[in-house]
């Protein structure tokens, strides 16, 4: 026998016995557990319906929303599954394609639904039934994806604003009002602040891999400078805007390329001024609301461009519990529940509801900034791409590419814009959709870069 195996062999026999024990225990485990695994969402409850959503993924937000579902939805239990957008997409795709749909209700952003217009039920009748909710028309129309049929009903809305730590106010240029800045004042401000802060940039943008910085270009910078988003993509005004962006970036914290949301660098004090989605800013002032100011985005030569974010609710084609899902949509769009969501999770109502006075301070700050932004003089409403379907992400990528090539790689502005405009037109020609706001909306005309 092998000599070097000898010293170990008494041990080995014991080991084998243990291995066997482990094997038996392991073999038994699946049979002990309920068939196919334990529920992680409460779907075991009698007659629970499956609700899949890309919203409220952070642990605490999910817990709070689950509480709202338990308290406010009387039609039965709802198993709330938060998923990443790609899982949302592949789950809907594979279930509808296989004809075995297990999801009864889907919640997501406009962009999550856009690629899958044909995989959801037509909710026109429900929209009619819920007319008393008074959804604003520009929001309700976003949900009409496939040939004008209502694919999703509005659920919540949000926007993007500036969050400012009061420490940064000391460098505010004289004559500038933080509540109504111009883009030039913003640049002067962060330049002065950087100088005052030991040459450390104080301004940040969410340019990380999951950051929403493309919305800054699509909904804020370009509409403010050009009055458009797509048609004016490579005009002289757009070149000015990108030239401005280049200067702004030179004064922006370079670590921005790692920031997915701005509330954490703000909380850490890594940056003092930041632009981001309200839900990604709300934790910054949560602890010390008195140290913070929330302000509308700056205005440019063509007005104050701002973007609306819309989340919706939809029912997959072939869903097992259509009626119950409809009841949940009705419950979630009542003004009461909408305000509850605002109070707890900082997403704004899409229905006509009076904002209460007892909002948490951080949410109240945001609500005020959003209100000022919407009602500002010369406000230019911009929408995320409408009707582009699966091309939505690729269009956003064009804006990100512009940023990369102009600001990070330092390429000449007009050259980059011309080349990216070609790409953009290739995508738009394929999609053949009319333009959306702030570009001139004309039905039947294909949106193109001029």
């Amino acid at each position, binding site marked *: 026998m092998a*000599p070097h195996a*000898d*010293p170990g062999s008494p041990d080995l026999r014991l080991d084998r016995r243990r291995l066997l024990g482990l094997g038996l225990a392991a073999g038994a485990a699946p049979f002990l557990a309920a068939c196919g695994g334990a529920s992680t969402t409460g779907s075991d409850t009698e007659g629970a319906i499956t609700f899949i959503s890309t919203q409220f993924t952070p642990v605490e937000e999910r817990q709070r929303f689950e509480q709202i579902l338990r308290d406010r939805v009387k039609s039965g239990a709802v198993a709330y599954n938060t998923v990443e957008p790609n899982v949302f997409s592949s789950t809907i795709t594979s279930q509808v394609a296989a004809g075995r749909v297990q999801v009864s209700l889907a919640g997501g952003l406009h962009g999550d639904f856009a690629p899958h217009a044909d995989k959801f039920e037509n909710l026109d009748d429900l929209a009619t039934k819920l007319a008393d909710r008074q959804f604003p028309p520009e929001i309700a129309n976003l949900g009409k994806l496939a040939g004008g049929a209502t694919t999703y009903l509005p659920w919540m809305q949000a926007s993007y604003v500036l969050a400012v730590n009061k420490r940064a106010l000391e460098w505010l240029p004289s004559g500038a009002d933080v509540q109504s800045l111009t883009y030039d004042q913003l640049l002067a401000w962060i330049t002065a602040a950087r100088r005052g802060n030991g040459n450390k940039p104080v301004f940040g943008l969410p340019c990380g891999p999951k950051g929403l910085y493309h919305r800054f270009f699509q909904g804020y910078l370009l509409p403010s400078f050009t009055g458009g988003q797509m048609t004016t993509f490579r005009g002289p005004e757009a070149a000015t805007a990108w030239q401005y962006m280049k200067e702004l970036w030179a004064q922006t914290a*370079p*670590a921005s390329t790692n920031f997915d949301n701005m509330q954490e660098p703000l909380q850490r004090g890594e940056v003092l001024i930041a632009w981001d989605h309200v839900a990604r800013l709300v934790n910054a002032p949560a602890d010390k609301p008195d140290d913070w100011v929330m302000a509308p985005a700056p205005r440019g030569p063509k007005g104050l461009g701002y973007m609306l974010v819309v989340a919706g609710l939809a029912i997959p084609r072939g869903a097992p519990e259509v009626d119950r899902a409809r009841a949940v949509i009705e419950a979630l769009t009542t003004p009461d529940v909408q305000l509850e969501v605002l109070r707890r999770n900082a997403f704004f109502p899409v229905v006509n509801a009076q904002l209460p006075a007892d909002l948490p301070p951080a949410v109240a700050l945001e609500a005020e900034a959003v209100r000022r932004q919407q009602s500002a003089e010369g406000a230019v409403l911009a929408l995320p791409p409408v009707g582009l379907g699966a091309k*939505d992400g690729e269009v956003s990528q064009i804006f990100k*590419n512009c940023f990369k090539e102009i600001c990070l790689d330092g390429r000449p502005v007009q050259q980059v814009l011309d080349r990216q405009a070609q790409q953009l037109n290739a995508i738009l020609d394929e999609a053949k959709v009319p333009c959306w706001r702030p570009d001139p909306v004309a039905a039947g005309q294909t949106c193109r870069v001029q």
Partner: protein
Amino acid sequence: MLAPGPGRGGADVSGAVTTAPDPAPSEPSSSAAVPPRATRRRRRSRVPTAALLVAPSVVFLAALFLWPIAVGVGQAFTGADGPTLAHLRRMVDDPYFWTATRNTALLIVVLIPLQFAFALTMALLLRERPRLSSFYFYVWCVPLAISDLAAGLVWLSIFADRGYLNSALSRFGLGDGFAWLSYDNQTSMFVAVLLAELWRATSLVLVIVVAGLQNIPRDYDEAAAVFGATYWQRLRHVILPQLRPSLQVALILRTILGLQTFAVAQALTGRSFPLLVGETYQWYVTLQNEHVSAAIALVILLMSLGTAVVYLRVLRDPATGGIR
């Protein structure tokens, strides 16, 4: 005898040397691996047995994955109206694609040799049975237990502008923070990704090498030492040749898994240091274009299988090498 011995030697030598298997230490490679005679003897009579042993795994993979793989690969070549090469063209036109290819190749080429040198050093250190070696081995295995998402987080907390590294530096009065991960510090960014990957994935190589070392009889090594061979000579001529099968396997697995990693690089650098697998996710998840995603996946597939073929051929044991 059972106490952690000082260096090598001790208990098992005396009994071992006398019954050492026949092949001389001068030709270790053929002795530790399959003795050629035996292989050849069995080849003809046992082919059905081999097929029988391999069959379950083939059936399993074929039943479950042949169709998904075919669909996945097929997406790269199908468009709205029939077969097309448009997706491939789109892929090579993308500004990130070539950077990602270059980065992936660079990372593999620099990382894998470093990792193997590191893992071998660790395994050989353990072989010396220092005191606490059991504890050391455990700590060195721990990164195995950490998912790549968590590993990325750990290293981000170290290299971030306000992370632990800059904290430590500023405590010692060495500057007030260097932007390690900034997009314009390509070198420090690469080094950060390299260190993180070295930390995360070396344990895999270590465990395979340690498992392989277990089966190398100490007799040869000690016999060589008796005849006056230096440590390096023994390493070069006795230990490494016998480790060849394990090293080959570790190399194949590590390269293939290495080509699949991106979570750490993404956590550390965003898209400033793109890698190919990260690009498949980018196209699939953010851009929702599964066709280009599949095209990039195909490139990864070809790279993986290509290197695997090279490893299988180049590192083939000379003893069994002639058989085809």
